[in-house]
């Protein structure tokens, strides 16, 4: 029963493909998979917007939206209708073609990232040998779309937002990539399916997730920080800081194009959360072996939703960084730590398994963290803010 439920979507996909001639079946199989992704994740996006607003409200002791439908859950429908029926205003001086194409490029690049994510057992659109590289290649393409949007609007806020976004995304992409490379080193493969398989064994009912190793823990923390910056989420939402830049690079977008940017941002959040779960939290594998009977895709979605909750929680807590703090943190703290993490991952690979290995690696990383944090805080690179008042 449960094993059937586990593979229900795969069976469904093949059942649909069974209606067409054999020569067309690969195309139809792929199409059904694509439709699945294009339907499920935007639906999740719609749900997330209302959960985010309600959650942020609760964090601020408010109620959040509760007017449209039961408990306000039809709010995204109302928002969607509003976005669709709104006038699409394009600035007179804008570069019309680039202005039109950039939300499309962004959304396509973001959707492509989902292609390699193993959503469940046997549930990935393509199992590429270089899947992780593909994911990061698509993430890199979205930077260009952001730049195109900002540049083509002919608006200073848009351009500033785009410059900030690109600078930030390039800086944090290095950290994102290098913290994932540790996992690749350990697995010996760039294929996300193989990475999940490597983590889905159990000792005493507990999984072999990489987050339970010292390098995995630090790697995950760095990955989470970089992912937050990569998706322009608070506290790294400088590119769209509404107090400074109106809406950043999509200031000049309205109606459905605005909705596309909005959706791309949330979908990027899902995919980066999904990748994080895949790399450090065993993808679709269950947290304890006793719960393995629960369908794998439920675990994946649950892990993504937990990550989204943390995203919202962080957004409700932390104030926005300043540009120099952002860059200092990336290049002077996170990047050296990531490189050290990479070396420790190598050390872990060549030490004998056991408690000693764990303690040594953890001590190195914790020591480095404490040391770098102390030095950085003393030099006021980051840490508590100092204030200067006008005379």
């Amino acid at each position, binding site marked *: 029963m449960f094993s059937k439920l586990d593979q229900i979507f795969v069976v469904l996909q093949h059942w649909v493909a069974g209606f067409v001639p054999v020569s067309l079946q690969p195309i139809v199989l792929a199409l059904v998979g694509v439709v699945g992704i294009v339907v499920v994740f935007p639906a999740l996006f719609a749900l997330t917007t209302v959960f985010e607003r309600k*959650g942020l409200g*609760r*964090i*601020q*002791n*408010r*109620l959040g939206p*509760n007017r449209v439908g039961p408990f306000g859950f039809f709010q995204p429908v109302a928002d969607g209708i509003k976005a669709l029926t709104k006038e699409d205003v394009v600035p007179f001086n804008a570069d019309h073609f680039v202005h039109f194409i950039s939300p499309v490029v962004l959304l396509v690049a973001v959707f492509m990232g989902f292609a390699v994510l193993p959503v469940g057992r046997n549930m990935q659109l393509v199992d590429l040998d270089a899947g992780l590289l593909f994911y990061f290649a698509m993430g890199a393409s979205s930077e260009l779309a952001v730049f195109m949007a900002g540049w083509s609007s002919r608006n200073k806020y848009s351009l500033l937002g785009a410059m900030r976004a690109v600078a930030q995304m390039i800086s944090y992409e290095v950290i994102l990539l290098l913290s994932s490379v540790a996992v690749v080193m350990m697995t010996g493969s760039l294929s996300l399916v193989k990475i999940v398989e490597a983590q889905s064994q159990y000792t005493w009912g507990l999984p072999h997730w990489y987050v339970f190793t010292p390098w995995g823990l630090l790697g995950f923390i760095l990955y989470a920080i970089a992912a937050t910056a990569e998706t322009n989420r608070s506290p790294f939402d400088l590119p769209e800081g509404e107090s400074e830049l109106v809406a950043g690079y999509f200031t000049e977008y309205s109606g459905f194009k605005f909705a596309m940017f909005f959706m791309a941002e949330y979908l990027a959040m899902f995919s980066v959360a999904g990748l994080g779960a895949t790399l450090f939290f065993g993808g679709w594998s269950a947290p304890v072996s006793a719960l393995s009977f629960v369908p794998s895709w439920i675990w994946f979605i649950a892990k993504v939703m937990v990550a989204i909750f943390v995203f919202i*929680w*962080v957004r*409700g*807590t*932390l104030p926005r960084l300043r540009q120099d703090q952002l860059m200092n943190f990336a290049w002077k703290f996170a990047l050296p730590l990531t490189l050290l993490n990479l070396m420790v991952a190598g050390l872990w690979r060549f030490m004998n398994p056991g408690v000693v290995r764990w303690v040594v690696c953890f001590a190195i990383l914790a020591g480095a*963290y*404490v040391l770098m*944090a102390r030095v*950085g*805080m003393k030099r006021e690179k*980051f*840490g*508590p803010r100092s204030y200067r008042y006008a005379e």
Partner: protein
Amino acid sequence: MLGEGIIKGMAETARNFFGSFVSKERLITVEYPEQRIPTFENARVFPFLVYDGADWEAGLRCVACQICEKECPPKCIYIEKSKEKKPDYAGKLQIYPAKFDIDVSVCMSCQICVEVCPFEAIKMNTEFELATDDRFGGLLLDRQKLARSNEYYHSIHPTEAAEVDARLAEEKAKVEAKAKAAAEAAAAKAAAAAQAKPTDTASPKTDTPKSGTPQSGGEGA
């Protein structure tokens, strides 16, 4: 330690998040159309005209002296005096406002009209749902829409209304006593004059101060 503050902040927001589900005191939001908080007694939104008695038209305290019209900073009051006099609820002949309009969209709720009114005829309302779908006519309220009974005034500003009523009663009593004294004096004078030579100078003399401050005779200021 780097990151300590972040964890503290996260704990605080988590406490808010879960606390808002548990304790009702945290959620201070008033869900307005369904839930309302009673208006504060000293709230002021928009002026209204007070009338005494049952008939709004007869009982308007306003005598169209136009002080408020002149004092109104944004000039949103429009008054036209009546040509003829009309008995008010007490039966006294008064000028009354043939037209008394206030433009809601211009009014800035400064309460100056209330402060300058010598007759306690205009007061501030606490009603705030003044939105209308008619941009022009709907926002220009005429005297019928502005008129509210003294009982309504008591219901929204009980303390202030009691003071006003006491003051009015006092003035009325004073005026009545004065009028009585004047009448007695007039009567005495008339009697004296009648004794000397019968002329009709007495009646204009008593009428002139009444038309000069006519309302002090009628209602008292």
